[in-house]
């Protein structure tokens, strides 16, 4: 199943960790994986973009209107990276419940047949005392929204494998809360 995914956010949010979890899972399934990451010059707070391509690709890069999926950990980076998303693509965005799109943006999404899912990951993280696991909440949501080329249960398995003991439970819970939020 070929898939091109753009993951966006700011430094410190754990974009690369998300990418690694999906990439490693795909690799475990015997799929070919290519990825690439771009950081700004700042240690904290700069834009981070990560590309993940699963399938028969040579290059790790993704061009304009080529991504199947855009996952963003904040709405500003979602808007900024929208051009990567191809028509009829899928967007999963961390934003507050009841988030209102600017009208011109809503029109753009409709015109391009883009489906957008909002995950209130910040609120969920606070509510369940999972600060620092916003990325995994969003990942859990993306997994059940069919945004990823691998099954949610397999990603969860990878997360268990690679996270150190003291973080494991938190990470698993965060992933499940995200999945639950997306199914509601």
């Amino acid at each position, binding site marked *: 199943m070929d898939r091109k995914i753009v993951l966006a956010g700011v430094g410190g949010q754990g974009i690369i960790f998300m990418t690694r979890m999906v990439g490693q899972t795909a690799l475990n399934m015997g799929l070919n994986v290519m990825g690439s990451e771009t950081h700004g010059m700042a240690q*904290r707070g700069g834009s981070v973009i990560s590309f993940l391509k699963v399938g028969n690709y040579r290059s790790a890069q993704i061009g304009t209107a080529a991504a199947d999926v855009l996952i963003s950990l904040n709405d500003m980076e979602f808007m900024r990276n929208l051009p990567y998303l191809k028509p009829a693509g899928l967007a999963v965005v961390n934003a507050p419940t009841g988030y209102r799109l600017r009208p011109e943006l809503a029109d753009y999404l409709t015109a391009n047949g883009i489906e957008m899912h909002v995950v209130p990951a910040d609120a969920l993280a606070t509510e369940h005392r999972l600060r620092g696991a916003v990325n995994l909440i969003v990942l859990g949501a993306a997994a059940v929204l069919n945004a990823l080329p691998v099954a949610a249960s397999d990603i969860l398995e990878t997360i268990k494998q690679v996270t150190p003991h003291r973080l494991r439970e938190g990470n698993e819970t965060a992933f499940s809360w995200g999945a639950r939020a997306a199914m509601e």
Partner: protein
Amino acid sequence: MKEDSRRLMLGNEAIARGLMESGCQFLSSYPGTPSSEILPAALKTIQELNLNVHIEWSTNEKVALDNAFAASLTGKRAACCMKQVGLNVAADSLMSAAYLGVVGGLLVISCDDPGPHSSQTEQDSRLFARFAKVPVFDPATPQEAKEMVAVCFEISEKYQVPVILRPALRVCHAREGVTLAPPLILDRPAKFKKDPSRWAATPRFRLLLHQELNKKLIALAEDFSNMPAFNFYESQTGQANLGIIAAGAPYAIVTDILVEAGIETVPILKLGTAYPLPERLIERFKDGCDHILVLEEPDTVIELLIRDKSKVLGRLTGHVPSAGEMTTDIIHNILSQTMAETKAGTLAPVDPAGQEFVSKLGLPGRRPTLCPGCPHRAAFYSIRQAFPRAIFTSDIGCYTLGLNLKAVDTVLDMGAGITMASGFYHAHQLDGTEKMIVATMGDSTFYHSGTTGLLNAVYNGSRFVLVILDNGTTAMTGMQPTPGTGAMADGSPGNRIPLERLIAGCGVDFIKVHDPYDVPTMIDLVKEAGEYIKTATPGIAVIIARHPCLIAHRRETAPFKNKPTVTAGCKGCKICLELFECPALYLVPGQDGTDSARVEIDRKICVSCGVCRFVCPEGAIEIN
């Protein structure tokens, strides 16, 4: 975790793995984006597999290369890695080592940064290879980078030349499922065979060595024409209107574009070795095509070296942009246009509608800034308060972002914070004008290339204030240790060399250490230093602004207990935003047009360092 044969690896991790799978026993490096992850990844493999390898963070790139060169003369395989501008620093060694040749394989890994994303220039290490007359390999993917490492060592030993591996950013920071092999353990006890006529060759012998090197290069070009693992094309029937010669990341990108567009009429010659140019292979490929498009980055190397350019399209003909990264979109549009021009088929150009739509949204740019609570911010603020009109020479590191605080006027290269300060001093002194000059430089940069400039400034009687921003780490490149902390590459304690002793050794008498978080006394100290340099001999004052980097030394520094609040006294003058610009401070617009805007604190990112309290002229930021 089970030992899997395929692992998801960064290009830099794959390179490190390749070193260990090739029996490399000596690895030196100076950190620099995009090369910095290679040495730490090698360390992990060394520890994981319990290998006997010397690794070190050297004080600079020349030091790294000289060390690795000597290791090679003992018969061991050795490598050094650096970013492309680091190769400038190591140029002296490289040029000479090319003539002298090597014994054990010697690999120089120089990582290029097309864009540039975090470098002063977009220079092409492959051109440097041509300049030094050493072979260069140019990988397109992490997997290929790892495979090339092994071949680089073989070639280096076969021809007794240093070899450059040049991965560009998009390979260094790409991630791929990479196939692993066991490490290679070579039984090669260190044995230096004396041969002064070669290892200490005089100019007369250098001529002979140069002639020898030229012969090696001719044979190498022939070898490269027969290296199907890295240099290949799929033979095709009939003449093609357009063929492509592609190297590095652009090869991977253009291949994907053609495959996805279902275009089968444009053959690609993939070239993994730009120099010496595999001319025979290229000529054979060219024969089958009416036009040849060359896609390489960041500069023109293959295109330049092809002798008969009658069919060739590229930078020299204006088909490829001469600056900037070769992104997927750019390559797509080059291809689209060139295919149309050469009647090689059709490929629709990239649709700019999405980009145009988003640019019209007017999203705020995210300019890079120092972290909340960064000690550099406090130091820059104090410097500027003490001497608002001084010339501020600075240097390369996180603290280049002192630009935002208007306390950085110049950034040339590593070490120029000091050398440009003395240059400015003497230029003004010619006219009898006294100009205050405050230089800033980070601790790691000072160890890298500060001392020579400082010695020179003291010796030649310059006058300026130098503030060393000592945060106890090499922060921008990922928190590598420095000789000041004394920790070595593997974390074990080395011999610490305190900045104070080093600076005193350069002949400076005024050396004061201060925590920049204490802004009022920091301002006074900078003023005192400014007075001192007017009359003292030598006229250089050094302040070591010492406070650990909050990210590298999180445990020792946090948590702070100076939680700030903004009182009703805030007038919205924005002084704290413009001259201090802590990202935790932001402006809230006034309500219904009556009250003025005021500043608030973003608790999510504020670290409660409390430094902002010194900045507000209204005293509206209080600590509680």
